[in-house]
Protein backbone atom coordinates (compact mmCIF):
# COMPACT_ATOMS: atom_id res chain seq x y z
CA UNK A 1 0.00 0.00 0.00
CA UNK A 2 1.48 3.32 -1.04
CA UNK A 3 -0.89 5.61 0.80
CA UNK A 4 -2.69 5.03 4.03
CA UNK A 5 -4.48 7.76 5.96
CA UNK A 6 -6.31 6.77 9.13
CA UNK A 7 -8.91 8.60 11.18
CA UNK A 8 -8.08 12.07 9.85
CA UNK A 9 -9.73 14.90 11.80
CA UNK A 10 -9.47 18.56 10.87
CA UNK A 11 -11.31 21.63 12.15
CA UNK A 12 -11.14 25.27 11.21
CA UNK A 13 -12.09 27.09 14.37
CA UNK A 14 -15.48 25.77 15.43
CA UNK A 15 -16.35 23.99 12.21
CA UNK A 16 -15.30 20.39 11.91
CA UNK A 17 -14.35 19.77 8.30
CA UNK A 18 -13.03 16.20 8.48
CA UNK A 19 -14.53 13.86 11.04
CA UNK A 20 -12.45 10.74 10.87
CA UNK A 21 -11.53 9.81 7.32
CA UNK A 22 -9.73 6.63 6.30
CA UNK A 23 -8.08 6.34 2.93
CA UNK A 24 -5.87 3.75 1.27
CA UNK A 25 -4.39 3.51 -2.18
CA UNK A 26 -2.10 1.02 -3.87
CA UNK A 27 0.82 2.01 -6.01
CA UNK A 28 -0.04 2.81 -9.61
CA UNK A 29 -3.72 3.36 -8.85
CA UNK A 30 -5.88 6.42 -9.39
CA UNK A 31 -8.25 7.60 -6.70
CA UNK A 32 -10.89 10.20 -7.50
CA UNK A 33 -12.53 12.16 -4.69
CA UNK A 34 -15.92 13.67 -5.39
CA UNK A 35 -18.36 15.48 -3.15
CA UNK A 36 -20.30 18.70 -2.72
CA UNK A 37 -18.42 21.92 -2.02
CA UNK A 38 -17.66 22.31 1.64
CA UNK A 39 -17.70 18.56 2.11
CA UNK A 40 -14.03 18.48 3.08
CA UNK A 41 -12.66 16.84 -0.05
CA UNK A 42 -10.10 19.54 -0.78
CA UNK A 43 -9.06 19.68 2.87
CA UNK A 44 -8.55 15.93 2.78
CA UNK A 45 -6.38 16.18 -0.32
CA UNK A 46 -4.36 19.07 1.11
CA UNK A 47 -3.79 17.12 4.30
CA UNK A 48 -1.95 14.47 2.30
CA UNK A 49 0.66 17.11 1.34
CA UNK A 50 0.54 18.72 4.81
CA UNK A 51 -0.75 21.98 3.37
CA UNK A 52 -3.38 21.47 6.05
CA UNK A 53 -2.34 20.03 9.37
CA UNK A 54 -5.00 17.70 10.81
CA UNK A 55 -5.36 17.60 14.61
CA UNK A 56 -5.71 13.86 14.73
CA UNK A 57 -5.02 10.80 12.65
CA UNK A 58 -2.06 9.14 11.01
CA UNK A 59 -0.68 9.32 7.50
CA UNK A 60 1.68 6.94 5.79
CA UNK A 61 3.02 7.43 2.29
CA UNK A 62 5.67 5.14 0.83
CA UNK A 63 6.72 3.96 4.26
CA UNK A 64 7.01 7.46 5.76
CA UNK A 65 4.74 7.79 8.74
CA UNK A 66 3.38 10.74 10.72
CA UNK A 67 1.01 10.94 13.66
CA UNK A 68 -0.92 14.22 13.56
CA UNK A 69 -1.80 14.09 17.24
CA UNK A 70 1.87 14.80 17.97
CA UNK A 71 3.87 17.84 16.99
CA UNK A 72 5.67 17.05 13.73
CA UNK A 73 9.38 17.67 13.47
CA UNK A 74 10.72 19.55 10.46
CA UNK A 75 12.29 16.37 9.21
CA UNK A 76 9.04 14.40 9.46
CA UNK A 77 7.20 17.16 7.62
CA UNK A 78 9.84 17.33 4.91
CA UNK A 79 10.08 13.57 4.51
CA UNK A 80 6.40 12.94 4.07
CA UNK A 81 5.74 16.04 2.02
CA UNK A 82 8.44 15.04 -0.45
CA UNK A 83 6.46 11.87 -1.23
CA UNK A 84 3.74 13.85 -2.97
CA UNK A 85 3.29 16.98 -5.07
CA UNK A 86 0.21 19.10 -5.52
CA UNK A 87 -1.37 20.52 -8.66
CA UNK A 88 -3.52 23.46 -7.59
CA UNK A 89 -6.85 24.63 -8.89
CA UNK A 90 -5.35 28.05 -9.60
CA UNK A 91 -2.02 26.56 -10.74
CA UNK A 92 0.05 28.90 -8.49
CA UNK A 93 2.91 29.05 -10.95
CA UNK A 94 5.77 31.34 -9.99
CA UNK A 95 5.04 34.44 -12.09
CA UNK A 96 8.61 35.75 -11.97
CA UNK A 97 10.06 32.57 -13.43
CA UNK A 98 9.83 31.21 -16.95
CA UNK A 99 8.06 27.94 -17.70
CA UNK A 100 11.36 26.05 -17.62
CA UNK A 101 12.47 27.78 -14.42
CA UNK A 102 9.18 26.86 -12.79
CA UNK A 103 9.70 23.22 -13.61
CA UNK A 104 13.36 22.96 -12.52
CA UNK A 105 12.96 24.98 -9.32
CA UNK A 106 12.16 21.99 -7.10
CA UNK A 107 14.66 19.54 -8.60
CA UNK A 108 17.53 22.06 -8.53
CA UNK A 109 16.88 23.94 -5.29
CA UNK A 110 15.33 21.24 -3.15
CA UNK A 111 16.57 17.97 -4.59
CA UNK A 112 20.00 19.40 -5.51
CA UNK A 113 19.99 17.79 -8.93
CA UNK A 114 22.65 19.30 -11.24
CA UNK A 115 21.08 22.06 -13.29
CA UNK A 116 22.01 20.60 -16.67
CA UNK A 117 20.35 17.32 -15.86
CA UNK A 118 17.31 19.03 -14.36
CA UNK A 119 16.90 21.09 -17.54
CA UNK A 120 17.12 18.00 -19.74
CA UNK A 121 14.51 16.22 -17.65
CA UNK A 122 12.29 19.28 -17.50
CA UNK A 123 12.37 19.64 -21.28
CA UNK A 124 11.36 16.02 -21.63
CA UNK A 125 8.40 16.55 -19.32
CA UNK A 126 7.42 19.79 -21.07
CA UNK A 127 7.50 17.89 -24.32
CA UNK A 128 5.13 15.30 -22.88
CA UNK A 129 2.63 17.96 -21.82
CA UNK A 130 2.97 19.65 -25.20
CA UNK A 131 4.64 22.85 -24.03
CA UNK A 132 8.25 22.51 -25.10
CA UNK A 133 7.84 25.53 -27.38
CA UNK A 134 6.81 27.66 -24.42
CA UNK A 135 9.75 26.85 -22.13
CA UNK A 136 11.11 30.39 -22.12
CA UNK A 137 7.78 32.17 -21.76
CA UNK A 138 6.49 33.62 -18.53
CA UNK A 139 3.28 32.17 -17.08
CA UNK A 140 1.21 35.26 -17.90
CA UNK A 141 1.91 34.66 -21.59
CA UNK A 142 0.13 31.28 -21.51
CA UNK A 143 -3.53 30.32 -21.58
CA UNK A 144 -5.15 28.88 -18.48
CA UNK A 145 -4.93 25.36 -19.82
CA UNK A 146 -1.27 25.76 -20.69
CA UNK A 147 -0.56 27.21 -17.26
CA UNK A 148 -2.20 24.22 -15.63
CA UNK A 149 -0.14 21.84 -17.74
CA UNK A 150 3.00 23.63 -16.54
CA UNK A 151 1.65 23.15 -13.02
CA UNK A 152 1.42 19.44 -13.72
CA UNK A 153 4.92 19.40 -15.23
CA UNK A 154 6.26 21.17 -12.13
CA UNK A 155 4.76 18.47 -9.91
CA UNK A 156 5.90 15.59 -12.14
CA UNK A 157 9.48 16.94 -12.30
CA UNK A 158 9.85 16.21 -8.58
CA UNK A 159 9.22 12.52 -9.31
CA UNK A 160 7.03 12.12 -6.25
CA UNK A 161 5.43 8.79 -5.39
CA UNK A 162 2.04 10.44 -5.38
CA UNK A 163 0.50 13.17 -7.52
CA UNK A 164 -2.29 15.23 -5.97
CA UNK A 165 -4.75 17.24 -8.06
CA UNK A 166 -7.06 19.82 -6.49
CA UNK A 167 -9.85 20.46 -8.99
CA UNK A 168 -7.29 21.05 -11.74
CA UNK A 169 -9.85 21.99 -14.38
CA UNK A 170 -12.41 23.92 -12.33
CA UNK A 171 -10.90 27.32 -13.02
CA UNK A 172 -10.54 26.73 -16.77
CA UNK A 173 -12.70 27.75 -19.71
CA UNK A 174 -14.55 24.66 -20.98
CA UNK A 175 -12.62 24.44 -24.24
CA UNK A 176 -9.30 24.26 -22.35
CA UNK A 177 -10.32 21.43 -20.04
CA UNK A 178 -9.71 18.53 -22.41
CA UNK A 179 -5.98 19.25 -22.93
CA UNK A 180 -5.40 19.13 -19.20
CA UNK A 181 -7.44 15.95 -18.77
CA UNK A 182 -5.55 14.33 -21.60
CA UNK A 183 -2.23 14.99 -19.87
CA UNK A 184 -3.62 13.55 -16.65
CA UNK A 185 -4.88 10.48 -18.49
CA UNK A 186 -1.39 9.99 -19.96
CA UNK A 187 0.09 10.07 -16.49
CA UNK A 188 -2.40 7.50 -15.25
CA UNK A 189 -1.56 5.25 -18.17
CA UNK A 190 2.14 5.57 -17.38
CA UNK A 191 1.51 4.18 -13.93
CA UNK A 192 1.58 7.29 -11.73
CA UNK A 193 -0.28 7.00 -8.46
CA UNK A 194 -2.76 9.85 -8.34
CA UNK A 195 -5.36 11.33 -6.02
CA UNK A 196 -7.69 13.69 -7.85
CA UNK A 197 -10.44 15.95 -6.58
CA UNK A 198 -12.66 16.71 -9.54
CA UNK A 199 -16.18 17.17 -10.84
CA UNK A 200 -15.29 15.64 -14.21
CA UNK A 201 -17.28 12.43 -13.88
CA UNK A 202 -16.65 11.17 -17.37
CA UNK A 203 -12.93 11.53 -16.80
CA UNK A 204 -13.24 9.80 -13.43
CA UNK A 205 -15.12 6.94 -15.04
CA UNK A 206 -12.29 6.47 -17.51
CA UNK A 207 -9.20 6.74 -15.31
CA UNK A 208 -10.21 6.04 -11.72
CA UNK A 209 -9.57 2.71 -10.08
CA UNK A 210 -11.47 3.86 -7.04
CA UNK A 211 -13.89 6.70 -6.33
CA UNK A 212 -14.84 8.04 -2.94
CA UNK A 213 -17.76 10.30 -2.19
CA UNK A 214 -16.99 12.68 0.66
CA UNK A 215 -19.94 14.29 2.38
CA UNK A 216 -20.06 16.35 5.57
CA UNK A 217 -16.55 15.41 6.56
CA UNK A 218 -16.78 11.66 6.15
CA UNK A 219 -16.47 9.18 3.31
CA UNK A 220 -20.07 8.22 2.83
CA UNK A 221 -19.53 5.89 -0.09
CA UNK A 222 -16.68 4.32 -1.99
CA UNK A 223 -16.14 1.83 -4.76
CA UNK A 224 -15.15 1.42 -8.36
CA UNK A 225 -16.41 4.07 -10.78
CA UNK A 226 -19.04 1.61 -12.01
CA UNK A 227 -20.31 0.86 -8.53
CA UNK A 228 -20.43 4.49 -7.50
CA UNK A 229 -21.69 6.13 -10.66
CA UNK A 230 -24.04 3.43 -11.96
CA UNK A 231 -25.25 1.96 -8.70
CA UNK A 232 -24.88 4.49 -5.90
CA UNK A 233 -26.10 3.08 -2.60
CA UNK A 234 -26.96 6.32 -0.84
CA UNK A 235 -29.61 8.84 -1.65
CA UNK A 236 -27.19 11.75 -1.11
CA UNK A 237 -24.71 10.26 -3.57
CA UNK A 238 -27.49 9.86 -6.14
CA UNK A 239 -28.66 13.43 -5.66
CA UNK A 240 -25.10 14.76 -5.93
CA UNK A 241 -24.40 12.82 -9.12
CA UNK A 242 -27.60 13.91 -10.80
CA UNK A 243 -26.89 17.55 -9.94
CA UNK A 244 -23.41 17.28 -11.46
CA UNK A 245 -24.69 15.52 -14.56
CA UNK A 246 -27.39 18.13 -15.12
CA UNK A 247 -24.79 20.86 -14.95
CA UNK A 248 -22.57 19.41 -17.63
Amino acid at each position, binding site marked *: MLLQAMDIHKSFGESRILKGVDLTLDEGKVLVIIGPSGSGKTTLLRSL*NLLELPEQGTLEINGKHVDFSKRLSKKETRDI*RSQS*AMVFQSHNL*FPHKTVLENVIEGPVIVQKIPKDRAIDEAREILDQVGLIDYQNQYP*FQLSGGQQQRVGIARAVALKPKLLLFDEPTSALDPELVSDVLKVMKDLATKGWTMVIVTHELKFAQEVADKVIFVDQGVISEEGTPDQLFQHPQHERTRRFLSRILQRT
Partner: protein
Amino acid sequence: MAPFVLGEITIDWPLAFHSFWPILQGGLIYTIPLAIISFIFGLALAMLMALLRLSRVQVAQGIARVYISIIRGTPLLVQLAIIFYGLPDLGIEVSPFAGAVVALSMNVGGYAAETIRASILSVPKGQWEAGYTIGMNYAQVMRRIILPQAARVSVPPLSNTFISLVKDTSLASTITVTELFRRAQEITATSYDFLLLYSEAAFIYWVFCFILSIIQGRIESRLDRYVATH
Protein backbone atom coordinates in the same frame (compact mmCIF):
# COMPACT_ATOMS: atom_id res chain seq x y z
CA MET B 1 12.86 103.56 8.75
CA ALA B 2 13.82 102.31 5.35
CA PRO B 3 10.87 101.50 3.10
CA PHE B 4 10.37 97.90 2.16
CA VAL B 5 11.27 97.55 -1.47
CA LEU B 6 11.40 94.53 -3.58
CA GLY B 7 14.83 95.24 -4.91
CA GLU B 8 16.02 94.57 -8.35
CA ILE B 9 17.26 91.05 -8.49
CA THR B 10 20.87 91.17 -9.39
CA ILE B 11 22.56 87.87 -9.64
CA ASP B 12 26.16 87.75 -8.58
CA TRP B 13 27.30 85.56 -11.43
CA PRO B 14 30.92 85.18 -10.37
CA LEU B 15 29.76 84.02 -6.92
CA ALA B 16 27.25 81.65 -8.46
CA PHE B 17 29.97 80.23 -10.64
CA HIS B 18 32.63 79.90 -7.95
CA SER B 19 30.31 78.48 -5.31
CA PHE B 20 28.71 75.89 -7.55
CA TRP B 21 31.52 73.38 -7.50
CA PRO B 22 32.16 73.41 -3.73
CA ILE B 23 28.45 72.91 -3.07
CA LEU B 24 28.13 70.16 -5.67
CA GLN B 25 31.25 68.54 -4.27
CA GLY B 26 29.64 68.41 -0.84
CA GLY B 27 26.80 66.60 -2.52
CA LEU B 28 29.02 64.15 -4.32
CA ILE B 29 31.35 63.23 -1.50
CA TYR B 30 28.89 63.42 1.42
CA THR B 31 25.23 63.64 0.45
CA ILE B 32 25.18 60.81 -2.09
CA PRO B 33 27.44 58.38 -0.19
CA LEU B 34 25.54 59.16 3.02
CA ALA B 35 22.24 58.41 1.32
CA ILE B 36 23.43 55.23 -0.38
CA ILE B 37 25.20 53.75 2.65
CA SER B 38 22.32 54.63 4.97
CA PHE B 39 19.81 53.16 2.54
CA ILE B 40 21.67 49.85 2.32
CA PHE B 41 21.99 49.49 6.09
CA GLY B 42 18.49 50.82 6.51
CA LEU B 43 17.01 48.26 4.13
CA ALA B 44 18.80 45.43 5.91
CA LEU B 45 17.42 46.69 9.21
CA ALA B 46 13.97 47.13 7.68
CA MET B 47 14.04 43.59 6.33
CA LEU B 48 14.95 42.28 9.77
CA MET B 49 12.15 44.29 11.38
CA ALA B 50 9.64 43.15 8.75
CA LEU B 51 10.55 39.50 9.36
CA LEU B 52 10.25 40.01 13.12
CA ARG B 53 6.83 41.61 12.63
CA LEU B 54 5.75 38.62 10.51
CA SER B 55 7.11 36.00 12.87
CA ARG B 56 4.79 33.99 15.08
CA VAL B 57 6.91 34.72 18.15
CA GLN B 58 5.18 37.37 20.25
CA VAL B 59 8.40 38.81 21.70
CA ALA B 60 9.89 39.28 18.23
CA GLN B 61 6.75 41.04 17.05
CA GLY B 62 6.85 43.25 20.14
CA ILE B 63 10.46 44.29 19.58
CA ALA B 64 9.73 45.29 15.99
CA ARG B 65 6.54 47.16 16.94
CA VAL B 66 8.30 49.20 19.63
CA TYR B 67 11.21 49.99 17.34
CA ILE B 68 9.02 51.11 14.46
CA SER B 69 6.87 53.16 16.80
CA ILE B 70 9.87 55.00 18.28
CA ILE B 71 11.41 55.77 14.90
CA ARG B 72 8.16 56.98 13.38
CA GLY B 73 7.12 58.87 16.50
CA THR B 74 10.23 61.03 16.92
CA PRO B 75 11.77 63.66 14.62
CA LEU B 76 14.85 62.68 12.67
CA LEU B 77 16.52 65.89 13.81
CA VAL B 78 16.11 64.79 17.43
CA GLN B 79 17.36 61.27 16.62
CA LEU B 80 20.50 62.79 15.07
CA ALA B 81 21.05 65.01 18.09
CA ILE B 82 20.72 62.10 20.50
CA ILE B 83 23.23 60.00 18.58
CA PHE B 84 25.81 62.71 17.96
CA TYR B 85 25.46 64.96 20.99
CA GLY B 86 23.82 62.60 23.45
CA LEU B 87 25.71 59.33 23.19
CA PRO B 88 29.07 60.86 24.17
CA ASP B 89 27.54 61.21 27.66
CA LEU B 90 27.56 57.41 27.75
CA GLY B 91 31.13 57.36 26.52
CA ILE B 92 30.10 56.49 22.96
CA GLU B 93 31.62 58.91 20.50
CA VAL B 94 31.10 58.69 16.78
CA SER B 95 32.35 60.78 13.90
CA PRO B 96 29.79 63.12 12.35
CA PHE B 97 29.55 61.01 9.20
CA ALA B 98 29.19 57.73 11.12
CA GLY B 99 26.63 59.33 13.43
CA ALA B 100 24.63 60.47 10.43
CA VAL B 101 24.81 57.00 8.88
CA VAL B 102 23.57 55.42 12.09
CA ALA B 103 20.68 57.86 12.53
CA LEU B 104 19.58 57.77 8.90
CA SER B 105 19.86 53.97 8.69
CA MET B 106 17.76 53.54 11.79
CA ASN B 107 15.24 55.95 10.36
CA VAL B 108 14.99 54.11 7.04
CA GLY B 109 14.81 50.85 9.01
CA GLY B 110 11.70 52.04 10.79
CA TYR B 111 9.87 53.42 7.80
CA ALA B 112 10.78 50.80 5.21
CA ALA B 113 9.97 47.91 7.57
CA GLU B 114 6.25 48.49 7.14
CA THR B 115 6.65 48.84 3.37
CA ILE B 116 8.50 45.55 3.13
CA ARG B 117 6.09 43.79 5.46
CA ALA B 118 3.11 44.96 3.41
CA SER B 119 4.73 43.91 0.15
CA ILE B 120 5.50 40.44 1.52
CA LEU B 121 1.88 40.11 2.64
CA SER B 122 0.69 41.18 -0.80
CA VAL B 123 2.06 38.00 -2.40
CA PRO B 124 -0.80 35.47 -2.65
CA LYS B 125 -0.90 32.61 -0.14
CA GLY B 126 -0.88 30.13 -3.05
CA GLN B 127 2.72 31.08 -3.78
CA TRP B 128 3.74 29.90 -0.32
CA GLU B 129 1.83 26.67 -0.84
CA ALA B 130 3.40 26.11 -4.25
CA GLY B 131 6.84 26.56 -2.70
CA TYR B 132 6.06 24.19 0.14
CA THR B 133 4.60 21.55 -2.15
CA ILE B 134 7.82 21.37 -4.16
CA GLY B 135 9.64 20.77 -0.89
CA MET B 136 11.05 24.18 -0.04
CA ASN B 137 11.42 25.35 3.54
CA TYR B 138 10.35 28.77 4.88
CA ALA B 139 13.66 30.47 4.09
CA GLN B 140 13.78 29.08 0.55
CA VAL B 141 10.21 30.10 -0.24
CA MET B 142 10.83 33.55 1.22
CA ARG B 143 14.07 34.14 -0.67
CA ARG B 144 13.29 32.57 -4.02
CA ILE B 145 9.54 32.92 -4.41
CA ILE B 146 8.12 35.61 -2.16
CA LEU B 147 10.79 38.33 -1.98
CA PRO B 148 11.29 38.65 -5.77
CA GLN B 149 7.56 39.24 -6.12
CA ALA B 150 7.43 41.51 -3.08
CA ALA B 151 10.32 43.51 -4.53
CA ARG B 152 8.24 44.50 -7.52
CA VAL B 153 5.49 45.80 -5.29
CA SER B 154 7.86 47.64 -2.99
CA VAL B 155 9.97 49.47 -5.57
CA PRO B 156 7.73 52.55 -5.86
CA PRO B 157 7.35 53.12 -2.10
CA LEU B 158 11.00 52.30 -1.39
CA SER B 159 12.09 54.70 -4.13
CA ASN B 160 10.10 57.39 -2.39
CA THR B 161 11.85 56.47 0.85
CA PHE B 162 15.21 56.82 -0.87
CA ILE B 163 14.36 60.17 -2.40
CA SER B 164 13.19 61.41 1.00
CA LEU B 165 16.43 60.10 2.44
CA VAL B 166 18.52 62.08 -0.04
CA LYS B 167 16.78 65.24 1.13
CA ASP B 168 16.92 64.24 4.80
CA THR B 169 20.71 64.03 4.61
CA SER B 170 20.64 67.84 4.76
CA LEU B 171 19.85 67.45 8.46
CA ALA B 172 23.34 65.99 8.89
CA SER B 173 24.53 69.59 8.50
CA THR B 174 23.39 70.09 12.10
CA ILE B 175 25.98 67.60 13.30
CA THR B 176 28.74 69.24 11.26
CA VAL B 177 28.82 66.90 8.28
CA THR B 178 29.98 69.17 5.46
CA GLU B 179 27.44 67.89 3.02
CA LEU B 180 25.75 69.83 0.26
CA PHE B 181 23.63 72.15 2.39
CA ARG B 182 26.36 72.83 4.93
CA ARG B 183 28.72 73.84 2.12
CA ALA B 184 26.17 76.39 0.99
CA GLN B 185 25.76 77.61 4.57
CA GLU B 186 29.50 78.00 4.95
CA ILE B 187 29.73 80.16 1.85
CA THR B 188 26.87 82.37 3.01
CA ALA B 189 28.88 83.08 6.15
CA THR B 190 31.21 85.24 4.10
CA SER B 191 29.11 86.31 1.15
CA TYR B 192 25.68 86.79 2.81
CA ASP B 193 24.02 85.93 -0.50
CA PHE B 194 21.45 83.58 1.06
CA LEU B 195 18.95 83.55 -1.77
CA LEU B 196 21.51 82.69 -4.40
CA LEU B 197 23.40 80.04 -2.46
CA TYR B 198 20.41 78.27 -0.96
CA SER B 199 18.72 78.28 -4.36
CA GLU B 200 21.82 76.67 -5.79
CA ALA B 201 21.68 74.03 -3.08
CA ALA B 202 18.00 73.43 -3.79
CA PHE B 203 18.70 73.13 -7.49
CA ILE B 204 21.36 70.47 -6.94
CA TYR B 205 19.07 68.46 -4.63
CA TRP B 206 16.40 68.65 -7.30
CA VAL B 207 18.78 67.38 -9.98
CA PHE B 208 19.79 64.46 -7.75
CA CYS B 209 16.17 63.53 -7.10
CA PHE B 210 15.22 63.95 -10.73
CA ILE B 211 17.95 61.51 -11.78
CA LEU B 212 16.77 59.09 -9.10
CA SER B 213 13.20 59.19 -10.33
CA ILE B 214 14.42 58.27 -13.81
CA ILE B 215 16.36 55.33 -12.37
CA GLN B 216 13.24 54.34 -10.42
CA GLY B 217 11.25 54.19 -13.64
CA ARG B 218 13.85 51.96 -15.24
CA ILE B 219 13.87 49.54 -12.33
CA GLU B 220 10.09 49.39 -12.30
CA SER B 221 9.81 48.53 -15.96
CA ARG B 222 12.52 45.91 -15.58
CA LEU B 223 10.69 44.24 -12.72
CA ASP B 224 7.45 44.39 -14.67
CA ARG B 225 8.73 42.14 -17.42
CA TYR B 226 6.92 39.09 -16.11
CA VAL B 227 3.51 40.65 -15.61
CA ALA B 228 1.05 41.40 -18.36
CA THR B 229 1.08 45.03 -19.38
CA HIS B 230 -2.24 46.29 -20.59
